[in-house]
């Protein structure tokens, strides 16, 4: 008999309101993240300055993923880790989601609208930290990922300071990749990733902040965007159409998440963007999903060609947690040089199909992933010049 334990279990403290519980959780999370940020310190700077572009403009990935990774893969070289680590990020693509994502996204809009935001002024900077991972298939057919932490500090005028650092060891795709790589004599791998610092002025790059689709706007112009989802949706479509990519749902969702990341938007504008996302044709609900950091969120997906673009957000705050590109087809080798191809057809670099195909990355492989670690407005650091009398 457990009457004593039953009696004990009936003792319970009064439960606070849901709002109070949420506030306490958010405060505790912020405290932990502040400790993490203070404890981990800034990534080490390298003297090498890299010109490799930040992979914010995922639109580029949709059109030239493999070509780009082949080039990068051939240029960079990395040692594989002593202790093998595997990327192994494969999404089940056999049952495409069919439920509408609109209710979940409207929920995100309501949650975003209820948040508060610190004002972004000339005396402040917008600091974002993301973890970017891209599956690189080099010309020998070895697939690997080098996770990289990217910290962007953007000032009010739109100048950006970017700091990057490798985040953890190089990861091979899976155990089969490791075996193939060892059989080949453990060559240097083109896993990408880099340590470096780059500063570029306003409007100097295609992925500069304050870019809305294919158009460049000032921060004030962005703030003046309409909040009404219909009008904002029209602005979005026109902005995306002004760029080099199709103005479809894939690229519109891309523009929405890019804007949310690059610019400190007021809550009502973030809410408006989530409502626009809710109305995008073909956007589907994946459901609850944990990202690679174990954070739980709601995932939605849009398909374009043979790729899915997934976005994971926190339904309690409307904050971005992750975005990823999933290849719906397998990437295989198909000639004796192990050059990659898709569905048996070699890519331009791959030559003719002369041998048996081997799967490098199965259908559903996550080819690109960005984890949103933190985004905040901070006071602008005092520059050395301004301290000089």
């Amino acid at each position: 008999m457990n009457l004593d334990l039953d009696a004990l279990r009936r003792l319970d403290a009064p439960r606070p309101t849901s709002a109070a519980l949420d506030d306490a959780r958010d405060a505790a999370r912020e405290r932990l993240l502040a400790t993490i940020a203070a404890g981990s310190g800034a990534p080490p700077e390298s003297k090498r300055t890299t010109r490799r572009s930040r992979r914010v403009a995922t639109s580029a990935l949709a059109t030239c993923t493999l070509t780009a990774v082949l080039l990068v893969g051939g240029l960079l070289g990395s040692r594989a880790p002593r202790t093998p680590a595997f990327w192994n990020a494969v999404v089940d693509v056999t049952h495409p989601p069919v439920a509408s994502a609109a209710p979940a996204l409207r929920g995100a809009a309501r949650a975003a609208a209820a948040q508060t935001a610190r004002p972004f002024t000339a005396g402040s900077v917008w600091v974002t930290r993301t973890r970017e991972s891209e599956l690189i298939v080099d010309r020998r057919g070895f697939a690997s990922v080098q996770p990289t932490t990217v910290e962007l500090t953007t000032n009010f005028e739109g100048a950006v300071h970017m700091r990057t650092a490798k985040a953890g060891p190089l990861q091979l795709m899976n155990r089969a990749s490791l075996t193939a790589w060892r059989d080949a004599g453990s060559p240097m791998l083109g896993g990408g990733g880099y340590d470096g610092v780059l500063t570029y002025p306003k409007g100097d790059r295609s992925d500069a902040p304050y870019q809305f689709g294919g158009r460049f706007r000032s921060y004030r112009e962005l703030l003046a965007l309409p909040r009404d989802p219909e009008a904002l949706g029209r602005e979005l479509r026109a902005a995306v159409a002004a760029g080099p990519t199709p103005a479809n749902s894939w690229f519109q969702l891309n523009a929405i998440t890019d804007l949310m990341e690059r610019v400190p938007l007021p809550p009502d504008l973030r809410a408006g963007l989530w409502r626009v996302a809710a109305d995008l044709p073909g956007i589907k609900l994946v459901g609850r999903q944990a990202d690679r950091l174990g954070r739980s969120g709601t995932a939605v997906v849009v398909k374009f060609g043979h790729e899915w673009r997934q976005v994971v957000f926190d339904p309690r705050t409307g904050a971005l947690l992750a975005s990823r590109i999933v290849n719906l087809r397998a990437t295989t080798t198909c000639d004796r040089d192990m050059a990659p191809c898709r569905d048996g057809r070699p890519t331009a670099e791959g030559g003719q199909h002369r041998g048996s195909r081997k799967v490098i990355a199965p259908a559903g492989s996550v080819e690109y992933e960005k984890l949103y670690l933190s985004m905040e407005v901070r006071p602008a650091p005092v520059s050395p010049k301004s301290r000089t009398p």
Partner: protein
Amino acid sequence: MPPSDAELIRRSREEPEAFAGVFDRHYDRIAAYVRRRLDEGAEDVTADTFVAAFQQRERFRAEHDSALPWLYGIATNMIRGRRRSERRRLRAYCQHAGRERDLDDSPDLDGRLDAAADAPRVARALERLPRRDRDALLLLAWAELSYEEIAEALQIPVGTVRSRISRARRRLRAALDATATIDDASIHRDPSEELA
């Protein structure tokens, strides 16, 4: 398949942000446990628990998949530093016998009356337990840990957990039985005898 706690903590050595996954997964349970044990400052203690866990993550033993027992252990240590708050919480249980929520939520009248009657006795018995016995018993009853997990949380052998819980439950039962006997006697006593 989401990564295990052990995997997240291992990753957090190189990617500190991975530890946020441990927080998201376990915050609610740790917070509910601490709230049940402390009258005030429960939010701070819960937040401190996760900060301390992050700072001590090298001590987490990788052979355990779940970090939950380890987190309960840290929370228990934090609670030990708040004796006054814990005492106030236990006395609140004594004073608010048959709290409204219990009475409203219990489906049957007997259950509601039991809850109302037992609360002060249980709370008084808990207050009188040695701290170490109370920690073990509450990790069993409120945190719903197994004996092995309690051993892991408190860093003591399983045999010690058994003896502490056994001792604590004996005292708890004695407190309940003793009071019940008196109550039963008072129920069945003939009122005329009191007058006589």
